[in-house]
């Protein structure tokens, strides 16, 4: 049976520490930003947004929303617009993969992504001298001119598959494969697993009260489930980008 990997994010547990962002960059060999690089041109496969209830001090309340590729399962916008077939949905896992070797750099996929979760390599990847020794051997750095995004740490999945194969198993056992952000999260706000497995934590989390998906109305079947007990937090489900101006309440 095919897997359908997904994530659950408990916004009420997220402290916005940023450990997931840094762990993601370490795992996937994303370089540090050069001087002057802003959020628009930087590369953060996973970005934590700070949102608030729109009130003034001292009534203001904040929350943190980790935002990554939502791994759309149906009518995946980036797949549809890519002229190079550089984006594919893996039917065995449900993961939307990006192949930089095929990418033309046209950035149609960035324009099509309703979640703004794709990033373009404007510059060569550069690490401070000596720091390239710390690169993850399972992930190749991407060159200038291609788009990249979260792929649920495909390097880890390959490692887990190799380990499983070495022990004579066909499938990866739950827990043998978790993305770097899940492993790094100190509060346990991010969970990962197979949505097709009813016993998995993510499958249980999506059935909980207060669970929602971002822009579910688009019908793209995103596989990232968020959860919050706070009503004003759940309103981000209708917004194209958490904390953006588009999300401003009247």
């Amino acid at each position, binding site marked *: 049976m095919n897997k359908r990997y997904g994530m659950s994010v408990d916004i009420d547990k997220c*402290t*916005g*520490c*940023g*450990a997931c*962002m*840094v*762990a993601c960059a*370490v*795992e996937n060999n*994303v370089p*540090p930003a050069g001087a002057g*690089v*802003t*959020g628009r041109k*930087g*590369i*953060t496969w996973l*970005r*934590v947004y*700070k949102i*608030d209830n729109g*009130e*003034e*001090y*001292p009534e*203001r*309340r*904040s*929350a*943190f929303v980790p935002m990554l590729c939502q791994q759309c399962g149906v009518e995946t916008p980036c797949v549809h617009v890519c*002229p*190079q077939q550089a984006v594919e949905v893996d039917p065995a896992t449900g993961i939307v993969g990006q192949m930089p070797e095929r990418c*033309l*750099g046209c950035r149609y996929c960035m324009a099509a992504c309703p979640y703004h979760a794709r990033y373009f390599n404007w510059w*060569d990847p*550069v*690490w*401070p*001298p*000596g*720091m*390239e*020794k*710390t*690169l*993850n*051997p399972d*992930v*190749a750095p991407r*060159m*200038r*001119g*291609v788009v990249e995004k979260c792929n649920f740490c495909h390097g880890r999945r390959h490692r887990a598959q190799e380990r499983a194969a070495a022990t004579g198993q066909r499938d990866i056992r739950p827990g043998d494969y978790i993305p770097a952000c899940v*492993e*790094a*999260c*100190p*509060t*346990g706000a991010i969970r990962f697993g197979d949505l097709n497995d009813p016993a998995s934590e993510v499958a249980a989390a999506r059935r909980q009260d207060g669970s929602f998906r971002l822009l579910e109305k688009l019908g793209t079947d995103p596989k990232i489930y968020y959860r919050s007990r706070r009503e004003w937090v759940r309103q981000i489900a209708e917004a194209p980008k958490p904390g953006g101006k588009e999300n401003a309440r009247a």
Partner: protein
Amino acid sequence: MTTRRDLFKIVGGSAVGLLFTPAPWRLIADSALWSENWPGIPRPARGEIRTRFTHCGLCPAGCAVRARCVGEQPVSLAGVEGGLCPFGVAGHHLPYHPARLKQGDRQAAAAAVAAVSEAHGTVALLDLRPGRTASWTYRRAMAALPHGVYLAPEEPAFAVDLAKAKTVLSLGAPLLDGWGRPSRVFAARSGFRLIQAEAVESRTAALADQWLPVRPGAEMALGPAVAAARSDALQSRDREGVPGAETNNAPLAYGAPTGPGSEALQSRDREGAVGAGAILDAPFGHGAAREGAVGAGAILDAPFGHGAAREGSAGAKTNAPLANARGSDVLGRGALRSRDREGAGVAQITGLAQEQIAQMARELRDNGPALILGREMTSEVLAWNVRVGAWGKTVGPREEAPVPHEWRKAAPVTPLPQVADGSLQALIIDESSAGARIPWADIQPKLAPDAVVVLLACARNGYAEHATHLLPTPVYPEALDDLPAPVDAMASEFRLSTPLVPAPEYAVDPVEFVSALAGLDAKDALRRRADAIHRAGRGRLIAYADGKSVPVKDLKPEEFWKALASGAEWIGEESRGPVPRIAPAASPRIAPAAVPGIALAAAPRIAPAASPRIAPAAAPGIAPAAATTPPDAAWPFFLAAAEESGGPLVSPLLSKIYQESRLRLGPHRAALNPHSGFAEGSRAAIETRYGRRIVEVTLDAGVPPGMVLVAGCGAGLEACRVVRI
């Protein structure tokens, strides 16, 4: 028949048509990619993948770390018991940080200190992370010098157990953002209700069950105020003749210690010894102790040195045993009236309603065990915890891990305020490990005019600008060091931050440098300490590699040491004992801290950011406050330290959170309230009486009006002005 004209048409049409296909663009792109591939794209190292264990040395929390290595080179770090903080996740980048110090004249520095020592001048060593084996070596070295002084910030003489708490009142402590060991804090989080009293909506405030937005700098005022409000409730009940009020409320209202050690404490109090009262007496250097009072009632009424104890409370006079004390018996009517006035004053200082404070007190009483946390875990915080009955439940003593007997002859720990001004001819500062930060404004007066200052550091952004000699040190994960137990560890601990990569040749080991000055051989100090722990035979060894927990007595010394060096952790037994004696605060730190334009009574000053976790890097141009002046027309803002910046060096990859996502306040940004008159992204100069810094303005509605937050400035509260540029 095809003509030549047709041929031209076909060729021309094909050329034009080709432009509308991806082919030429693909060719251009591929050419560009090929051209990009040859020189610059780094190739990750290949080799055998190994897993090694160590402990993160970036902060006193000392999280257990599992390092994935290619050969000997770590390529990723992960937590063992839970996640790591963002600084720890990228800790293996630090040896390659471009801003790392790489030069220093070790011989010149050693000669300068030796010259002072030979001339019988006073040589002092400032240890910013006390409690390590290195600290014992420093103390031994200072004892060996003719006039050696060992300086260190105050360490909490107690530990807290969050797992047993049901209600936690945090007075500005960054409980969910770098306080204690993250794995313990978040494992316990679902078990307690968190009330966060803080002026700014910090990460902890955002995730707290209840956030109380108090006035800037007034957080610590709530500690005694909560107790005072609770006592009011008790008096009311007494008046109404509520049955059982005495038995139900006395322990809470008067801090009668329960659990281990309570009898000893009561006995000591009966004997007239200075017990809990001495702890509680003078939260800010005034109060009952000065007046000679030792009872709990005295403490109750002296939140900031203006209480009933000074006026002669009944508690102070009677010196009643704590456990048997009853509100009206101990305090008397006069004291209560005084306390009422204090409650109103504290409400005014904090900006909270008296009923809110009373409600908080009731919550601490009714939903116990309770725990009060301060930004710094000082003796005052311990005192308040004793008052809420936390001693022996959520707060308790913790012994230090055993040390070799012969080390006990080391130099004592001298608090900096006890050093005479102008008396230090040479000062060595170990800044290699992030720890508490003491403002230079507090250090500088202690130095003689021509004093030698030797700084052992890995970067230039701390005390470097004040040093006469700067020596580069190893950084995590190059340095071998042990880690003192964090404040949330009830049992003593011993764990090593084992190097994952070798230190470069230019790096000077601080312990080696200091011990050489005193002629000590301290190379095997950690091993000797481990042997001493093994000889004591207590506790267990937890090996993360296999998850096994083995009693120390079942191990041979060599096995014990080998396991520790491989990333295992020794955990001792929880201590049981009476409330420790704690001297009153060395110097009063009282400064007005109010919203500009509102004149208030004296409020406690936030001590400069000596977080138990990570020392913020000093901001160039802005010195920490020595004393705060109230905001006025010339200094209309309060400058406050925002979040911790992760120590003197952070991985360049932290650009993800400081620069690209702006998730945290970066070192050159300042946060202001949207109604402060500044535009998002505009540039401004923050001016204090110590200097000036140019910042980019970030508007944040979680910052109260009249306050400006700057990351890593190392300041508590400081009056400042913000100038548009």
